[in-house]
């Protein structure tokens, strides 16, 4: 049994409203994740938690800005800033899995250090290219590539930690879903433009992704165990 056709018709009739609600829900989820991980970061000063939090802080800003974008084909300042935060959020999430292999000493800032500076430059280049060519293709391709590698890293983590840490399996799933979501976004934008049914399914997929992140964060910031 699939999603009833009436559901898509309701969305079609209230496109702006649904996009507003969708963006607000995701921004709210991201905000909860940032708040819930704050205590853990303050106690530990752990760089991985720091980059993870940065990712969701940037996603939160991106989805709030998304409300002001009328169409990806029209130029607007909101579109440029949205894309900047969206790509950077992806980079932060990706780097939260990778920082241990690259950082030898603790950087003072997680928003401005030599490695992150490289991501800022890359992001600016991608945003400029998308501005020049129109649409979001450079963002889509970069995120497809990022989440492909992130999925591979998560698969390695899954193989090593699966027995002791059960959530690594779900984290691998969420990385694969991210890869799928960005791939379908790219396909939708280039080959299936205007098909609301596909767009609605991507929205649902994105909601599931952020809800899984929220589930994980809630689960691991709530429980109290003595050692």
């Amino acid at each position, binding site marked *: 049994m699939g999603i009833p056709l009436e559901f898509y018709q309701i969305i079609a009739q209230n496109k702006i409203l649904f996009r507003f609600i969708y963006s607000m829900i995701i921004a709210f989820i991201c905000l909860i994740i940032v708040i819930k991980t704050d205590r853990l970061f303050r106690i530990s000063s752990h760089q991985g938690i720091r*980059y993870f939090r940065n990712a969701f802080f940037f996603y939160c800003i991106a989805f709030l800005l998304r409300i002001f974008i009328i169409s990806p084909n029209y130029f607007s300042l909101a579109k440029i800033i949205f894309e900047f935060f969206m790509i950077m959020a992806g980079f932060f999430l990706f780097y939260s899995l990778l920082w241990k292999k690259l950082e030898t000493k603790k950087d003072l800032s997680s928003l401005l250090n030599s490695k992150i500076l490289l991501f800022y430059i890359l992001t600016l280049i991608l945003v400029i290219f998308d501005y020049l060519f129109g649409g979001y293709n450079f963002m889509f391709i970069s995120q497809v590539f990022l989440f492909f590698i992130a999925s591979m890293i998560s698969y390695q983590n899954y193989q090593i930690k699966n027995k002791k840490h059960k959530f690594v399996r779900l984290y691998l799933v969420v990385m694969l879903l991210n890869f799928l979501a960005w791939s379908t976004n790219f396909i939708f934008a280039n080959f299936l433009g205007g098909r609301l049914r596909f767009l609605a399914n991507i929205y649902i997929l994105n909601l599931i992704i952020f809800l899984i992140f929220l589930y994980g964060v809630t689960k691991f910031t709530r429980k109290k165990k003595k050692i």
Partner: protein
Amino acid sequence: MAKKRERLEVIKDIIRSIRDNKNIKPTRLLYASNLSPQMFKEYINELISKGFINLDIDDKEKKTFSLTKKGNDFLEEYRIIEDFVENFGL
């Protein structure tokens, strides 16, 4: 080769040693922490300044360490942090 302990793990080990050995002496804690004397001193000073542990000196000038409530809370939170970091692959 043994894996190098992270800063957070070292702090956890020191605090746990103090919790498990009531009124532990500095020399014994140094052995238990498996650190060089220089590093040990740095960590201890940090933990005292953060209010995680106390350095108690009795009438006979005998020095021992004890755990504060804040230190005990950290130990409980450590497990949560460790779980979070490992499960999210951070």
